[in-house]
Each structure stands twice: as structure tokens, then as C-alpha cells.
């Protein structure tokens, strides 16, 4: 408060001084209000008036409040079904809990004993498998209302309903696992009003049935992770769920018109929470969520409840990230991956008063190709690009040494990487080699001039296609503006003289991110672009089969033909390993990675070493990198 008054005085003095100011006296007296009835100073900066002391290593935690700075802008739309900003989603995860299955610190999916009283796994005759859950008595939402099986069934039925997804446009995300359940497609498409694979058995019991086509599944439990949602918060009182032989369904009054207003109102104010925190408010002017500890939360899979009373999740612009931390505007900034910022953060830590942790990113920055058209439909061309880009130097420069180069779609935190360290080491690293680039191109038939004569050694190479036409080795690249990675690709690849010397040309088109996404998802052969640069993360479960499914809209790289089928089969084989058979899974995973490394549908550029920087008053902060955000780490943290 004192600071506020001082600053206000400064403004006042400036105003009064200059206004009066044309020269007379410049405020010879300071209207110095040292008075300060500071009723509220909710900032958790230096001046905390708490009783703790650090003497003799005795740390007493106040656990009053933590302000987490997030570089993704918050929108206030906390439920991730309409808009899906990463920061909103982190807040959402903190207010959502009581899942039947959760991820442990090793990235494994485990039943949550705080919730699940009993679970029966039944193999059905048709090959499908049913999980029947009985939940514990006494589970409550943050408002004290009881959590029942109906709330779990509601979560599945509601977020996967045609009414909500299509009519109410909640299409940014869906109830994550419903696509794997029996009758999921028919229910979502509105062909059936019952969800065949979901049953409400009694007040505390419900079941979900995974379709035989999706089994076995190595991450089996992940498919049956369900969280509750309060039906009478999202829907009017007269909407209910009824159980039928064909599955659970909503009462007939479940229409977009009937539920629309209730949904719209609750969407921004989800105060009935199941997670360790409950939604208190969103302040659009501070870009900040305020979440307070949920007294009714029984704990996560380990029984851990939140320590810190209030979590404020606040957007901070990248330009002023470290300044915000330094000045105490935030207590923590997370997932910092750019080299310059990390270096500046480490300097801050060296100055004292701050600390940091580091963990590998579950993802990477990459160049992605369209493998169904243009020169990049040929594996040799994609491999040539790999050889023509010095990825080690690229990663070193971009991350300032706080990142690594990977040779496939994996992250260093994955247990499979450790298990197969030797195989990973043996992957083709595609070390910078213009000679190898030329060799693979020539072997693939890029040996002609524009007129069909033998390649002269200068200019663009051509290849004779099956239909007799000549294809020039010109790759069309779409990138976004104001993108430092794109800038580096220009200097290290596009304008690299060795690229031209190899007979290759890369044309850059710059546009908005929305445009990039549109072209990136366009798998038609009419797409004018074959190369994009962006970043991606690996999910947990590590299920990439859908990304390679022939003909699927999710097959972004559009690998087709035998190659496409082969890598898809390997991705499916990975999923089809029996749950718990880690050895078989590791081998299937490695086989997939090796094939990917050979086909190079993407060029991995860098996999950052993420850094979280925080005030030294924060203790017990630990992130594993599996969760892609801090929503679980915050549960274990303490504040002096």
C-alpha cells in the first residue's frame, strides 16, 4: 500500500507540478502521506507480515498465496471446451479432480484410491472390455454437495453429446476417451441418443465399455479415466440421466435450446469444483484466475491435498517475464524454453532470492512435411533436408545450450528412452552433410536438369516422375511472422548456400498462425505448401496411431502408400501391447521410432530443457514434465 501511495504521489506530483508548473515552484512540499491504513495488501512480496522465520533452518510455511505467471494469455473461459488456451487449461486442471484414474510421477496411469472403492474389469464376448466402478461414499464437491456415479456418467454424456459439441459449439475439446467407447461415434454424431458404452448402474456405480477395436491398449487405464461434473450446475434442474438397456441417456428435454442459457452462465463461473482448488474469480483486467483451496478435496491418487490456500494464475507477457518475477509481481514463471530468457533467469538466481528447477520438455520444435505431394513426398528429399540443416548448431543457438537434439518423436523424460538408450544412440542422427544430402537425392533420381538432361551441377535438380513429367526440387514453406525459429530456419537452411549447391530451393511464405494451421491441416494434394515449422508436445498416453491413420484427417504429415501403412501398423502395434507388458511395449515403441527416423516426416529441431524460475520462498516445487503444466506440482508446493 505504501508503494501504491508513493507511486500515486509521484503521478500527482508530476501532474500538479507540471500543471502548475509552467515555471513557478515545483511542488516544494511533498504531500507526504505516510499514513497508510493498508487494509489489504494481497501481494505476496517481500513485505509479508507473517510469523514465520528461517532461523536455524526452521522453515515455517505460511502457505497463504502463490502467484504463478504464465506466458499464455488467459481468456476467462476456464472450461477447455470452447476456447483452449494452455493457461486456461492449467487452471481448469486445478479445479478438476476426483478422477478414477490419474497419472503418477513416472507417467504411469493408476487407479485413484481416493475415489475408486472397487473396480471390476470384465472381458466381454465381443472382445470389448467393461470397467465397472464403484466410487467411495462421502465424496463431495467444493460446495459440499455429494458426488455420485451420475456425475461421472454426466461428464461423458454431456461433453460428447451432439447438442453440446455441435449446437453449443463446445468443440475445442471433447470428453477425452469417449471416442474409444462402444457407441461413441453414434452418440456424438446424433445417430443415437443413448451412449451404448456408458451405464449408470446405481447411485455409486457406473461402467464404461471400451470397444474391441481399441483393445488391447497398453495405456488401458487411461481410457477409463473419468472425472465428475455437476449435472445441476451445467443443466437446468429438470434435466436428468436415465439408464436404459442400450446405455445411459439424457431425458428428452436435453436440447441445446433448453440447456443453452444455463451452460453459458456456468461456463464462466464454474464454482462447483472437484479438484484440489475451487474457482473463485477471474479478473479480466489482471488476466488472472484466483483459485482457493477446496476443503472437500480428499486428495489425489497419493492422497495429497493442496498446501497453499490461494493460487493466482496470471498472464505475463514474454517481454517482461523476468522483470515481473524480479519485482515480485509474480512468484513464479514456468516452462521457460528460450535460451536468452533462461540465461537471464539464471543470472537472476545467481543474484540471490530466486531459485529454479529444470526438466525436459515432452515435445519439440520441428519442421513438418506434407508427405503426399510435392518433392517432400519422397523420403530422400526429407532426408536431404535433415542432412542440410545443422540441427546441433540450431538447437545450441536457439536454446543457448538448454536443449537437446532428438532424432525422433520422443522426449528425454520418457522411460522408454532410458530403457533403449543404446538403440536411441544408434538412430541416424543425420549429422550435417551436404554430401550425404546429394547422395540420397541422386539415389532417388533427382539427377536431371529442367530440360531432362543430366544434372549439370548447378541450379535446381529435377526428377522424372512415373507419368513422365519432371518435378523440380522446390519446396514451398509456410511460416508465421515474428517467429524467431522461422528466422533461424531462413539463415540456417533456406539461405544456406549448401542447399542451393545441392540443387534444392526452399521458398518461404509468411502468414498468420491461423493460416499456418489451415495449411498444416490440409492433407489434400492441392495444398500449395509442403513444409511448416512449429512445435508439438507428446501426450500421455503416448498414442500416435491416429496421427498416422491412412485417410484420417489427423494424419497431418499425410504419409501414404506402403510407407504410411507401415508406420501406422507400427504405431498401432505399440498401442496393442497388453497393459503392464513394459518390455514388449518398449520394443514396439523402439521399432516405431526407428521407422520414423528412417521416414523423417518431421525434422526435430530442438527439445528444450524447460526451466521454472521462482522466488526462494517457494519450496517443494517439482515438475516431472509429464503433465505439460504445473497443475499437479502446485499441490505439493509450500510457501514460506
Amino acid at each position, binding site marked *: 500500500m505504501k508503494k501504491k501511495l508513493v507511486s500515486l504521489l509521484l*503521478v500527482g506530483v508530476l501532474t500538479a507540478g507540471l*500543471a502548475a508548473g*509552467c515555471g513557478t515552484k515545483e511542488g516544494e512540499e511533498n504531500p507526504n502521506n505516510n499514513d497508510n491504513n493498508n487494509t489489504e495488501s494481497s501481494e505476496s512480496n517481500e513485505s509479508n507480515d507473517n510469523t514465520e522465520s528461517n532461523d536455524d533452518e526452521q522453515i515455517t510455511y505460511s502457505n497463504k498465496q502463490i502467484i504463478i505467471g504464465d506466458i499464455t494469455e488467459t481468456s476467462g473461459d476456464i472450461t477447455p471446451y470452447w476456447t483452449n488456451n494452455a493457461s486456461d487449461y492449467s487452471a481448469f486442471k486445478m479445479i478438476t479432480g476426483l478422477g478414477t484414474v490419474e497419472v503418477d510421477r513416472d507417467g504411469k496411469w493408476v487407479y485413484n484410491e481416493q475415489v475408486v472403492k472397487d473396480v471390476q474389469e470384465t472381458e466381454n464376448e465381443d472382445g470389448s472390455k467393461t470397467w465397472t466402478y464403484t466410487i467411495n461414499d462421502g465424496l463431495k464437491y467444493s460446495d459440499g454437495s455429494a458426488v455420485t456415479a451420475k456425475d461421472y456418467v454426466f461428464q461423458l454424456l454431456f461433453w460428447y453429446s451432439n447438442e453440446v459439441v455441435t449446437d453449443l459449439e463446445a*468443440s475445442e475439446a471433447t470428453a477425452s476417451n469417449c*471416442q474409444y467407447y462402444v457407441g461413441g*461415434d453414434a452418440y456424438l454424431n446424433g445417430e443415437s441418443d443413448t451412449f451404448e458404452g456408458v451405464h449408470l448402474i446405481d447411485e455409486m456405480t457406473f461402467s464404461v465399455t471400451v470397444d474391441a477395436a481399441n483393445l488391447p491398449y497398453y495405456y488401458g487405464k487411461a481410457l477409463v479415466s473419468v472425472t465428475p461434473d455437476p449435472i445441476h450446475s451445467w443443466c437446468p434442474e429438470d434435466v436428468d440421466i436415465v439408464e436404459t438397456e442400450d446405455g445411459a441417456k439424457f431425458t428428452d428435454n436435453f436440447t441445446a435450446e433448453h440447456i443453452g442459457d444455463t451452460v453459458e452462465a456456468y461456463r464462466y463461473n464454474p464454482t462447483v469444483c472437484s479438484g484440489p482448488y475451487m474457482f473463485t474469480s477471474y479478473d479480466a483486467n489482471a488476466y488472472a484466475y484466483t483459485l482457493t483451496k477446496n476443503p472437500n478435496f480428499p486428495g489425489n491418487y497419493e492422497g495429497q491435498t493442496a498446501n497453499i490456500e490461494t493460487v493466482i494464475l496470471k498472464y505475463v507477457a514474454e517481454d517482461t517475464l523476468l522483470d515481473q518475477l524480479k*519485482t515480485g509481481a509474480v512468484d513464479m514463471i514456468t516452462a521457460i524454453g528460450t535460451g536468452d530468457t533462461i540465461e537471464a533467469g539464471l543470472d537472476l538466481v545467481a543474484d540471490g532470492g530466486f531459485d529454479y528447477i529444470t526438466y525436459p520438455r515432452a515435445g519439440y520444435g520441428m519442421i513438418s512435411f506434407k508427405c503426399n505431394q510435392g518433392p517432400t513426398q519422397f523420403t530422400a528429399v526429407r532426408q536431404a533436408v535433415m542432412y542440410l540443416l545443422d540441427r546441433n548448431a540450431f538447437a545450441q543457438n536457439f536454446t543457448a545450450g538448454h536443449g537437446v537434439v532428438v532424432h525422433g518423436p520422443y522426449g528425454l523424460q520418457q522411460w522408454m528412452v532410458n530403457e533403449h538408450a543404446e538403440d536411441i544412440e544408434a538412430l541416424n542422427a543425420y549429422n550435417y552433410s551436404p554430401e550425404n544430402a546429394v547422395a540420397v537425392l541422386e539415389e532417388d533420381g533427382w539427377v536431371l536438369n529442367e530440360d531432362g538432361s543430366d544434372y549439370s551441377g548447378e541450379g535446381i535438380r529435377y526428377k522424372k516422375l512415373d507419368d513422365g513429367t519432371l518435378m523440380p526440387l522446390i519446396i514451398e514453406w509456410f511460416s508465421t511472422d515474428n517467429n524467431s525459429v522461422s528466422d533461424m530456419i531462413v539463415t540456417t537452411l533456406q539461405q544456406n548456400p549448401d542447399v542451393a549447391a545441392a540443387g534444392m530451393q526452399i521458398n518461404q511464405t509468411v502468414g498468420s498462425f*491461423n493460416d499456418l494451421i489451415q495449411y498444416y491441416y490440409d492433407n489434400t494434394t492441392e495444398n500449395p505448401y509442403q513444409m511448416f515449422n512449429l512445435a508439438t508436445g507428446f501426450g500421455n498416453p503416448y498414442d500416435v496411431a491416429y496421427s498416422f491413420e491412412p485417410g484420417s484427417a489427423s494424419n497431418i504429415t499425410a504419409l501414404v502408400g506402403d510407407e504410411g501403412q507401415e508406420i501406422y501398423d507400427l504405431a498401432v502395434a505399440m498401442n496393442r501391447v497388453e497393459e503392464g507388458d513394459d518390455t514388449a511395449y518398449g520394443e514396439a515403441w523402439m521399432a516405431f521410432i526407428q521407422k520414423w527416423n528412417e521416414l523423417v516426416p518431421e525434422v526435430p529441431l530442438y527439445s528444450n530443457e524447460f526451466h521454472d524460475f521462482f522466488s526462494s520462498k517457494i519450496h517443494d516445487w517439482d515438475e516431472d514434465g509429464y503433465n505439460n503444466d504445473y497443475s499437479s506440482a502446485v499441490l505439493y508446493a509450500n510457501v514460506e
Partner: protein
Amino acid sequence: MLKYIAKRLVYMVGVFFVVSVIMFVLFNNVPGDRALNQVQNMRGKVSNERFQEMYQQARDKLGLDDPIPVRYVKWMGNLLRGDLGYSTIYKKDVKEVIAEPLRNTILINIIATVLALAITIPLGIFCAVKKFSKFDNAVQVFTIVGYSVPIYIIALVFIYLFSVKLGIFPISGMNTPNFQGTGFAFLVDRLYYLGLPLLVMTVASLGGMTRYVRAAMIDALRMDYVRTARAKGLKEKVVIYSHAWRNALLSVITLIIGWFMSIFMGSIIVEQVFQINGIGLMYYKGLLGQDYDIALAIQMLYCVITLISNLVTDLSYGIVDPRVRINK
């Protein structure tokens, strides 16, 4: 006078429609597929056929398959009824999306404008009266520097100085997150956060207006009626403020009214740097996110403000200067 206003209003309506057509056509011809943006996330989660259905529904809702004239008529009809459209980024009505940012922008700009005028007018007058004095020369130097340095640089320098080094102001935002205070405490908190952006906006606008006022006053002070007033033995204050300033005001009035009208317009740079939830930033986000209903709504708001501002400026000439009679 009334006839003149009526004529100008008709002219304004014409200009409004011409601008709206140009803007609408421009926005609707920007490359990109807004419908696809809306349903992109459903790829792979639903069958290809279903995805196509959803995509088509989105196109129908946005009217993307209609010819541009039809789309324009629909859009304009809605606009005139107060329906500003639907934000594809925020998935809610534009009216709801821009209400709070518009309020914030107006609040900040009112304070900044009053603050700037309160400083620049007396300062400009004083400099004109004390022309070529040391003080005047110093002000000339500072104002030319302030006039030349982009506001973005001023903002960054001030952040470094006042926030990072001196720790007087917070770096960004409009209030303390989770601030529980009300009334005076809330006001203090709000001003504490807005202090730095206000300071930046004020400093950035000092140069131009101060120099303008000074120049206008110097011209006025050279006039014969000023000499006459002084010869009559009037007090210097009366000469300056009643005689010289009233006439100098004529050339400054356009600027002042322009400033006041611009309180509805956000400063993209200041709002971006200080993360102020204002209309300028919202416009910028709308453009970046191809959320054209937002961008168009704000653009048309700017258009209306500009037209009204021009009218008010012209009318004010007649009020300030009795020699000017607006009746044609």
C-alpha cells in the same frame, strides 16, 4: 446552423456506408477460412463425414457461402440493430467481448487526456510568454525529444526505470490480482496500476501539444489587438488569457477536440506493453486471430467517432470564434 448540422449528418451517413463497404469487402477477402478455424479441433475426433458436416454448419452460420453483397446486407442489418456479431475466438457475442475493454480504454484515455491538457496548455502558454528564455529553450529541447521518441521506447524505458529499478509502479496489468478492496482502496489500487501507463501516455503526448500551443500563442501575442490591450493598461494576465489565448485557441481547438474524441480509441502499443484490457488491444487480437466480427465492429466504432469528431470540431469553431458562422 441546424440545416448545416443536418447536411453534415447526411454526409456522415454516406461516408459511414462507404467506409463500411470498403472495410467489409477488405476483411472478407483476407485469405483464411474462419469456419475451418472453428471446427479444426474436431478433426480426427469425429468421422470425416461428420467433420465435413460440422464444417459446413460453421460456414452456414458465418454465411460464408453467400455472395459478398448478401453477407454485407446481413451484417449491416445486424449492426444497425446493435448486433455486432459473434467472436470466433472468444465464442461469445462481440458486444460482450468488447464492453469491458471499451470501458477501460475510455477511463484511461480520459485521465491521460485531462492530464496532458492540464500540463501542455499552461506549459505552452508560459513558454510562449517567456519565449527564448532558458526555461523555454529547455522545454523545446525536451518536447522535441519526447515528440521524436516512439511511445514504445518511452514505455520500455519507464518500465525499466520506475518498475524494475525504482520499484515504484507495477510493470503491467490494471489491478492487483484477487484484490478484495472496494471503494477508495480499489481506486487507489487501480490508479497504482495505471500510474505508469498514464505517465507514459502523458509524457508521449506532451511534446506535440506543448509546441502547438506555444506556436499558436506566439502568433497571437504578435497581434495588434494584444498590443492594444497592453496599451490600454490591462493586466498581463488578462491580456494573455482573455485576449491572446482565446484567439490562439482557434488553431488548437481541433487538436483538443480530436484528443477528447480519441478517448474511445485504444492505444494498441500502450495497451499491449502494459497488458491493459483495452479496445486497442482487442482490435489487434481480432486482426491477428482473424476474428473479423470483433475487428470490424471496432473499426466501425472508430469510423463513427472520427466522423462525429470532425463535426464537433467544425461546430466548435463557430463557438470559439464569433467571426466564424457555420450556416451553410
